[in-house]
């Protein structure tokens, strides 16, 4: 086996996997506070990339464009929760899930109207001269993606384990009724979870855009990949889901490299189905019985 090639596959797998992981993180954060699968999560990822392209196009430095794109998408997440989820709070979960599907179609449609069907590229953060490492060529952007993803994960970890709001959000996921009774505004936590999910998803989309290009419809596939990563890592466990994304990215990249790239997406869905059948709680999931 050729070490350089293996390394190459690993790096590109981890890079794409980071975005799957951030998408997956968004799924689990909303799932934990609401019990819902938010099918618009992939659209947050798409919006991150597309907003960043637009801001960069206005002449802003790419770093600033990415930050603004993430913030703009956070606002979209908040608006989505206020306009489409909160007014029907208490409705059966299936209705809410269907609403999120409707929202995803709406966002994609609006994105198509706004940006057209073209594919866009975002400039890389620090050039495109590959770095050579043990014979493998690495895009500097890959390092950015991994470093930013890890910092975001560390930030969230801190939020959930050291701040009152973070603990409050966790509390909602463990026992919603008890969360109300200790004085937590569960509605506000749900809003916050949509905002965080949008923020991390958009960041994932924006930092990956320089490597993969982006278009109005990339959210569909990225959303599905993120969902598969969640199932792989465990739906109730944000950091498991993020790890699931990295693992999925690497598996996909190895599969494409050593077997056939034509079946790259098929690998994902075979893994997804296998896990749904064999181990629905995922690699790192707590048993679903604990969710209330």
């Amino acid at each position, binding site marked *: 086996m050729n070490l350089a090639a293996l390394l190459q596959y690993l790096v590109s797998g981890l890079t794409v996997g980071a975005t799957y992981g951030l998408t997956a993180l968004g799924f689990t954060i909303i799932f934990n506070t609401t019990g819902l699968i938010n099918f618009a999560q992939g659209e947050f990822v798409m919006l991150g990339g597309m907003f960043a392209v637009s801001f960069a196009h206005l002449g802003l430095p790419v770093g600033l464009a990415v930050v603004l794109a993430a913030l703009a998408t956070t606002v979209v997440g908040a608006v989505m929760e206020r306009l489409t989820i909160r007014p029907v709070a208490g409705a059966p979960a299936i209705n809410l899930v269907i609403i999120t599907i409707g929202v995803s179609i709406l966002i994609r449609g609006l994105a198509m109207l706004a940006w057209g069907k073209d594919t866009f590229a975002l400039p890389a953060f620090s050039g495109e001269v590959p770095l050579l490492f043990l014979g493998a060529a690495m895009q500097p952007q890959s390092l950015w993606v991994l470093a930013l993803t890890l910092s975001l994960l560390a930030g969230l970890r801190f939020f959930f384990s050291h701040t*009152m709001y973070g*603990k*409050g959000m*966790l*509390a909602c996921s*463990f*026992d919603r*009724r*008890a969360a*109300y*009774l*200790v*004085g*937590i*505004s*569960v509605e506000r936590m749900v809003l916050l979870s949509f905002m965080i999910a949008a923020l991390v998803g958009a960041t994932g989309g924006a930092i990956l855009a320089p490597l993969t290009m982006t278009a109005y419809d990339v959210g569909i596939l990225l959303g599905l990949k993120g969902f598969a990563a969640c199932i792989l890592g465990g739906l109730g466990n944000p950091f498991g889901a993020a790890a699931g994304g990295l693992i999925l990215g690497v598996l996909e990249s190895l599969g494409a490299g050593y077997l056939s790239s034509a079946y790259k997406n098929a690998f994902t869905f075979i893994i997804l189905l296998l896990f749904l059948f064999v181990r629905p709680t995922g690699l790192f999931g*707590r048993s679903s019985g*604990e969710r209330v």
Partner: protein
Amino acid sequence: MLVVTNLDVFYGRIHAVRRASLHVGKGEIVALIGGNGAGKTTILSTVSGLIRPREGSLTFDGHDLGRTRPEKVVRLGLSHVPEGRRIFKPMSVGDNLLLGAFHRAKFGRRALLDQDLDAVYALFPKLAERRAQAAGTLSGGEQQMLAIGRALMARPRMLLLDEPGMGLAPNIMSEIFRHIRALRDEMALTVLLVEQNAKQALRIADRGYVLETGRIILQGPAEELTENRDVQRAYLGREQDGQA
């Protein structure tokens, strides 16, 4: 302090509470007893804002609770320790307690909360020993202490306790009831205590109400209820069979 008047509560078409009226005066321990499904939990949940009443009024210290959201009720000084404890099992004992003070957490207030944490640990030394442990690993009695401690962290003036003795061994149950008594005697808390175990509840209560299929059928001083024939037959006798 708490006044409930002609309360009607429905779950869909199930009429769970029927024109129930009760009041709890400042510094009292009032027991609400009744069998399984009588509507005790429903009354407490309506008071704490989890369920909306169809009819009737609820006031706490003059505040109308009928439309008040649960997180606001806590802020008014009324804390509900729910049936089955409902602690946050995967989280540490310390975090569970801290979450009890959720609405009091502001920048620079940490020292105040730490003081309150210490006060709860002083009250329940067993919790102090296990502060870093996941709450789900505690014994039933310790979980109940944690649930009460978590409610105390909100600095309430009144506690609603829903079957604090449920599922506990008799000696542990007595310990919990001693604590409840001490909360009133030493911390001047007002308590509305829901129990199926009428004997224990009436022993520490000043007054009591008996609830049957959603209606309050009897009320009076605790000793009087303990002596009452019907109460003895329906709620006190069963204990001897170990079923209550």
